[in-house]
């Protein structure tokens, strides 16, 4: 009878350089002389770049430029006596997000339906929480011109994403349609919008619109930017979705026809679920781009996150704080873009994109 100890002594343990950290290092970083040179070069480069940056960040950088202004970075000139409303909204979204992670992964149909309804109602709730009511002492009205910072960037991005999605899908279907007028109009819209830079659309909305509208109609700059963002994004989304539609084999349409489904049923049950799943990566890529593009509204004078960051540089105490402020802004954009990207990879895995 051999015991466990016998086995361990009978076979010699692998050499220490082949397993654990050392093994990993040997196989991945110092596998060949070429790898070794690359590794040493990369480490050298990292040292040259990172060490001075870190030294600057820890010793020289004036991070008070960020800490003093953290509130206006989050919500711009939104009155600070009322800003608990912003934080309640953020807290609510975080809670809803974390709860959703569990609910939508589980199989509890009732729970999922409830959660969906909560998500559908929450935009109204949050909107009124932030905007308030005229003459109310509990939730006084906060004018839209006072919404700024990250809050404004998010409103623009979220509205742009949510509103451009259905419009984009409709435009994509319209472009594929057999009805000539619809096809023609969709195509013209898509091509015209894709043919102009976003900044010109923003300028049109901010600068030209007041000239066209009657003088007593005032639309807050935020709404003009929201609509411009959504309409612009829709054209690009339409083309992404069209790509998905074209990836669906002819046979799927024919099978749906053979089953006697109406065009709507065919699209809703057969084509769209497959087409949209195919194009998740480009759509998420587009939405990440959209989120970053919201920083362009700074040019038309809206106080979004980037614009507030820049205005910090004019405050008497922080005149030379470009490095700190722009580094922080880049970090914030990166964190949220990366989060969106990771979320999309999760979604792709769940839906099995690339495996079917």
């Amino acid at each position: 009878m051999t015991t466990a100890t016998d086995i361990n002594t009978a076979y010699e343990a692998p050499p220490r350089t082949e397993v654990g950290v050392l093994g990993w290092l040997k196989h991945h970083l110092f596998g060949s002389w070429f790898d070794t040179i690359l590794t040493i070069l990369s480490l050298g480069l990292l040292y040259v770049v990172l060490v001075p940056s870190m030294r600057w960040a820890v010793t020289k950088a004036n991070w008070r430029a960020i800490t003093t202004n953290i509130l206006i970075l989050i919500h711009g000139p939104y009155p600070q006596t009322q800003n608990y409303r912003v934080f309640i909204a953020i807290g609510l979204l975080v809670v809803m997000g974390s709860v959703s992670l569990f609910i939508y992964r589980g199989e509890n149909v009732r729970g999922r339906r409830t959660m969906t309804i909560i998500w559908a109602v929450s935009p109204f709730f949050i909107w009124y929480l932030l905007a308030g009511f005229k003459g109310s002492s509990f939730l006084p009205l906060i004018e839209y011109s006072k919404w700024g910072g990250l809050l404004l960037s998010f409103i623009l991005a979220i509205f742009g994403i949510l509103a451009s999605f259905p419009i984009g899908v409709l435009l994509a279907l319209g472009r594929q349609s057999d009805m000539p007028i619809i096809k023609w109009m969709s195509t013209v819209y898509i091509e015209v919008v894709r043919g102009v830079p976003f900044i010109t659309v923003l300028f049109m909305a901010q600068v030209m619109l007041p000239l066209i509208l009657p003088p007593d109609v005032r639309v807050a700059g935020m709404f003009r930017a929201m609509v411009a963002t959504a309409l612009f994004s829709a054209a690009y989304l339409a083309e992404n979705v069209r790509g998905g539609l074209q990836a669906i084999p002819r046979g799927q349409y024919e099978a749906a026809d053979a089953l006697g489904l109406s065009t709507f049923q065919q699209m809703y049950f057969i084509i769209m679920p497959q087409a949209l799943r195919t194009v998740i990566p480009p759509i998420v890529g587009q939405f990440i781009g959209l989120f970053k593009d919201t920083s362009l509204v700074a040019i038309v004078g809206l106080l979004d996150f980037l614009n507030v960051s820049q205005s910090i540089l004019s405050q008497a105490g922080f005149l030379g704080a470009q490095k700190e402020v722009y580094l922080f802004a880049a970090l914030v954009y990166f964190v949220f873009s990366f989060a969106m990207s990771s979320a999309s990879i999760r979604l792709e895995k769940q839906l099995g994109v690339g495996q079917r």
Partner: protein
Amino acid sequence: MRKVMIALTVLVLFTILAACSQPKVEEVKSNEAAAASTTQEEPAAAPAPAAQATESRLDTVRKRGKLICGGNKNLAGFGVLASDGSFSGFDIDYCRAIAVAIFGKADDSTLEIRPLTASDRPIALQTNEIDVLVRNTTYTLSRDTEWSANFGPTTFYDGQGMMVRKDSGIEKLEDMEGASICVQTGTTTELNLADQMALRGINYTPKVFPDAPSTLAAFQAGNCDGFTTDKSGLISQKQELDDPAAFQILGVTMSKEPLGPAYAHGDDQWADIVDWTVYCTFSAEEFGVTSANVDDIAKTAEDPNIRRMLGVEGELGKGLGLDNDFCANIIREMGNYEEIYNRNLGPDTAFSVPRGLNSLWTDGGLLYSPPFR
């Protein structure tokens, strides 16, 4: 999968409904309110002829309950978004002063600052999106005509200056023969530099950059011998350099840049209100009236000029359509010109801009108020 699709669609549709309906509801409400109030008031004000049907700007502002002032949020000392979320600066203080003149106080309920970019300015004025523009705007003939705007009294006399390294040995423009000069492209500064150097017969190499920070960065890096922009800008941008003491601003002033408030054509009463708000701050400094002593002086002053200015005597304020003590209110809330200047640009600030031309006429400057009588 299907459930997720349905859920998504529902969510998306609801959100769009929410987002689309919300602004409209708000607008309709405010329009209704506006319509209701006009229909209520106009019969009372006697059936006016068509020419008077457009209400005066003052009435519009009063009815709205707040002044909308176009300002800057990116110019140190003049218009800045402060860390408490409010706007502050020299120009912003003049927005405040106008709101005080009309409503007696300047806070969130009576004043809205609308930060504008340089290119937004004329359109915001022409479309009446703002009541008055106080955004470091140089008064020029073409702006006066092409913007359909008029300019109030100049609140700050600026002018283009030149910054050089102290150890460069450059003391005046004539020393800059063959030098390279960093300048922001597309600005009047660039054109003016060319004019001034040609006038003096000095050869130089302009190095142009698209925006202010990159221009300054190039100068800091030693790419040019000189750096030119408006003096007020030079003074604040000097503080951004790593070693401000190593640089100096030459005494020469290469252009005239009078900065002041602007308002749209067509309402002379409104123009008067803005103008006399500015003159009030000039006169107050001239008479030594400050925010600290204005109430005492109003009680004790014997000089009829001061008594008229503060509304103790005469009906001057009423003539503008304002409260008779509008000027006393401005001084109490905002202070006189000197107080406004020192608060934003004076020796206790990071900028410490010398008064120079922006002194009272009695001190050799250009600030001169017509008499309050």
